[in-house]
């Protein structure tokens, strides 16, 4: 099975959710821990459709993050249909959309990141707001954890 965490750009809430799911960070990570995650805030534009490898879980399943804009629900439906038409099993892939964990503060930091990349505080701002959203992110990751165990 493959596990893909979705958010708008694949490098914010999805990145933190994947890290929490993979036990790379705890339920209350520090801002420094979030900033040190691979691929965190790693983007120069606002293009969607980029896939990032996050690691392997305890069952040796590959875990990814993917930027899907604001269309997480639509992509889940399309992916489910695509599996059907390719004759693959639905449990080949699990998609979990955490884009609502990217709050307004995180979204503002994207604009800083793209318009003024020389300002290094953009990633810090997004990490600050994601730390605040951590209970919700953890909830999503735990749902995924339970699904995979089942």
């Amino acid at each position, binding site marked *: 099975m493959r596990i893909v965490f979705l958010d708008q750009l694949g490098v914010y809430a999805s990145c933190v959710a994947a890290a929490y799911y993979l036990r790379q960070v705890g339920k209350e990570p520090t801002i420094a821990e979030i900033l040190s995650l691979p691929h965190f805030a790693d983007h120069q534009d606002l293009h969607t*459709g980029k896939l990032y490898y996050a690691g392997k879980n305890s069952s040796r399943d590959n875990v990814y993050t993917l930027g899907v*804009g604001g269309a997480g629900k*639509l992509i889940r439906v*399309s992916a489910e249909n695509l599996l059907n038409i*390719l004759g693959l099993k639905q449990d080949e*892939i699990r998609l979990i959309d955490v884009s609502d964990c990217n709050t307004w503060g995180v979204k503002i930091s994207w604009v800083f990141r793209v318009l003024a990349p020389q300002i290094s505080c953009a990633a810090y701002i997004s990490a600050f707001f994601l730390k605040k959203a951590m209970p919700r992110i953890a909830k999503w990751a735990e749902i995924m954890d339970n699904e995979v165990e089942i």
Partner: protein
Amino acid sequence: MKIIYHCYGGSHSSVTAAAIHLGMLPETRLPCKRELLSLPYYDAQVKEDHGRIRFMGYDEKGRQIYISSKNNLGESYERIMRQLLSVISKEPAPAVAFVNTMPYVNVWMMLGGFLSRRWGWNHLGRTIIIAGTRQSYYRFVHLVEQLKKNNF
């Protein structure tokens, strides 16, 4: 081989292009209102259907033709779906072609689609959509011809 025509709502341009591909619509003349409205899924999708990939039929070479909707994802839709394909499929990757029909959509199709699908003004919306579809019709024919010529 699977060919997926995709547009904003999966109701008009993708259905029209897929129908031309399948020979359900003529290539040498404009279709009439009845022909367009009798197509499966034409002006029939609702918001909850967005993202669904629907089967339209087999073409003359046995390829499966589908339609899908992608809202505002634009070119990103294909990129995202290809990324997911690369994650789920084993080598060799399955042959799937994503065909974007949005560049051939004119303002009348957008306006008619909005009135019909979003506001539920079916009568007015459909009149405008059909006029718009007929206006862009040969562009869809050209798109399908190019696709077949390139041996997709």
